[in-house]
């Protein structure tokens, strides 16, 4: 039982962490929390099952296509729901515009794909009798795939932010978009790029987690919420916080599910979420932001 709590908990936690990072990547470049994060996670599973199971593409091609769709959806999100709202006086309307867009996509999914959860293909064929297969087979790929995706994403983002000029430009926009604009940084293009990147990360989370979570349109609101909890715990914009928070959430949820039951797990997560928001809105790890005068 302990093993399944840990393996399942870490895997689900990695998916939550990746959705949390998706929120963060969009937030850093635009100060917008977008409800499309859960939508991307949901689509990662549904589109993957569509391309590979229904249309018969091989797993690698399906994977690339799913991420490409994620990037395109990210771009559409920025152009359609974020850019017009950032221009208006009531900027908080992004809450509604991104929610509306996410719901539209979810409804199309529900109608065209169906409201039943459908299985997701095994991505890496494993021959359990071969020596390599017995090693890989110890832990099912549905458990290690999301964790691997999380590690790769964190590594990739570290490289982007620390080693490339465009990554530094992201950090600059996140810290002070006015000064960045005055320097001549292309704020709009950078914001577009970050939404495309978020699209890739969000669908990656859904794709790698779908053998466990299935291809199900209802994953959207679950991922929206459970993916945001790590952001609230770890502090907005902090990817490290999102990973720690996500894994902790996944482990806690599974442990509680097994030991005390699902009702307690759900209620406890919600209670902790509210308590953290009220007592430490900057997150458990974050420091209160110093204001500029």
């Amino acid at each position, binding site marked *: 039982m302990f093993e399944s709590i840990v393996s399942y908990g870490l895997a689900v936690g990695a998916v939550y962490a990746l959705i949390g990072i998706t929120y963060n990547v969009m937030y850093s470049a635009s100060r917008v929390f977008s409800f499309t994060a859960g939508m991307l996670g949901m689509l990662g599973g549904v589109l993957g099952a569509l391309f590979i199971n229904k249309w018969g593409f091989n797993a690698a091609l399906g994977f690339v296509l799913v991420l490409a769709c994620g990037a395109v959806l990210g771009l559409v999100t920025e152009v359609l729901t974020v850019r017009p709202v950032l221009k208006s006086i009531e900027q908080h309307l992004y809450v509604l515009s991104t929610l509306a867009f996410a719901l539209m996509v979810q409804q199309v999914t529900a109608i065209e794909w169906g409201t039943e959860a459908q299985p997701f293909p095994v991505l890496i064929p494993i021959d359990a009798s071969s020596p390599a297969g017995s090693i890989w087979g110890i832990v099912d790929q549905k458990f290690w795939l999301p964790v691997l995706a999380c590690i790769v994403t964190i590594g990739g983002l570290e490289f982007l932010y620390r080693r490339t000029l465009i990554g530094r430009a992201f950090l600059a926009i996140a810290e002070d978009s006015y000064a960045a604009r005055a320097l001549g940084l292309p704020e709009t293009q950078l914001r577009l790029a970050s939404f495309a990147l978020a699209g890739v990360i969000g669908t990656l989370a859904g794709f790698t987690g779908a053998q466990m979570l299935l291809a199900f349109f209802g994953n959207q609101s679950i991922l929206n919420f459970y993916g945001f909890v790590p952001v609230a715990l770890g502090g907005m914009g902090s990817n490290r916080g999102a990973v720690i928070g996500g894994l902790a959430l996944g482990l806690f949820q599974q442990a509680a599910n097994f030991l005390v039951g699902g009702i307690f797990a759900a209620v406890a997560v919600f209670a902790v979420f509210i308590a953290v928001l009220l007592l430490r*809105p900057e997150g458990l790890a974050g420091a209160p932001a110093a204001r500029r005068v």
Partner: protein
Amino acid sequence: MTDTTAPARAGGMSWLGRLEGRLSWILLGLAGLALPLLDDSYIGTIAERAFIYWVLSAGLNLVVGYAGQIAIGWVSMLALGAYTTAALAAGRVGPEWNPYLALAAGGAIGAVFGVIVGLPALRLRTFYFAMTTLGFATIVTQVALAWKDVTGGGVGTPGPVFPWPFEPGWGFYYLCFILAALATWITANIGSSRYGRALVAIRDAEVAAEASGIAKPRILMLVFLLAGALGGVAGGLFASLQSYITPDAFTFEMSVLFFIAILIGGRGSILGPALGTILLTALPEFAAPLVQWSTFLYAALLLLIVLLVPGGIADLLDFKNRRPLTQHREIVPRIELLPRVLDQAEGGHAIELAAIALHFGGVRAIDGLDLEIHSGEVHGLIGPNGSGKTTTLNVISGYYAPSSGTLRLDGAPLPFEEPHARANHRIARTFQTPRLVGAASVLQNVMIGGTVHGEASFAEAMLSLPRHHRDERHLRQAAMLALATVGLESLANVRADRLQHSELRFMEIARALMLRPAFLLLDEPAAGLSTEEIRRLGALIKAISREGTGVLLVEHHADLIFDICDRVTVLNLGKVLAAGTPAEIRSHREVVSAYLGA
């Protein structure tokens, strides 16, 4: 149904506007009463559904439309109320309850959770609260699935059947109708009371609301309580209407229907969202092929509204406020009215700041500041940008807590970081950028300033009891007098966002006068005014101080400062560079160079 249903956004209480509002309600009410005459149970069921949705939406309308809190998952209240009522009535928890009592229990549970879900809205803005309501809706569904003993899990549980007099059929119809009418009546009463105005002020001008003494947490809690209770009651009715409920019946998408109905109707209106709810409930029934796509269409509509008409469709239909205003209006304050506005009984008050220091991060905004403001004096505060003028004003009005130093009013310490408590000490202020409710009339904006003078409780306002009516009458009279004093009487019924910038500055002063302030803090009141307007403003400020009010004037216009101030303090880099009479300051060489450079 009631004489107070004229929505807040209708601005001034023109008789035509009132009649329009009342007439629509009477027609709606008559249609509701007469509907059983059709004897068509299909239409009856649609109407029941619309009434039930409206019971929830009426409460949600106060949260979303008035207070501007984006509660996107309010369907959770419907689910809570439905399961509570159904489980209690079916005897799944203890003995079987009378269905009417179970319905009341559903409302009570809704009220409790309305407050819990609302908690994050008190401290955090928009997205967090939206996410909390969404998360709560998710959790409620998960619990409903898992808690099989009480909810029946995925299989579900039968809904309550109400006995006489509201037995299934038209009896139940009238129960829904009566509760919908009741929900309309109490939310409309709140909407048109000082509580409704306070909610709108929290939405559009939060800092101004605080400065007017509106305690945001308390009033929001009351509204969440009411909206939760109405949601719970709606849930109980919904369970009976469905006759069998499963978690699938409470999809998150249903929230969108409630939400969009309110947005279509327009923020801060009651009639609009009511019509929106009826329309959205009935539409899919008459356009069967669209049913499958209805949520998609609602979401698309939501996106369109947000992007194109953020004020809601009702804003497009707001013909009354299209009428052109007179061009070349002049603001002519009537200083002779001031004694009636201020009626200062006793003077001799003083605010004292001693050794105040405050820094943001590493930057010292104020560095050891001493300052005194006395009744009957105009005290000018000048200095270059970033010298700490507005910060000083924000310390006095309770927005910032300094790291050291004392702030006293008549010798007693004034607590820091309690901006809404300043109104009770009769300390009023205006803002560098006017803070106003653009969609409300000028009169209503000014009435917000007198919120603390109201005596009727939330419940009294909700039930439209006499004390509430007396409050309204007094506030209205006082606001008209304040408007006449600053010279904006003729614009009382105009939407505030149609005013010119200079008029807004005078409107803010009128709002501040509603507190009958002992101290008035003005943050750059002359910015953006013409020379003639500045002269009139100067005369008004001077006259206010001569009535015994102590005025702190933060200003860039040197001529205004030197014309009307009794004392001037010059700040530089957070410290007092010089203090004295205007004549002394003018001849101060260091001041001239520091101030000129700026």
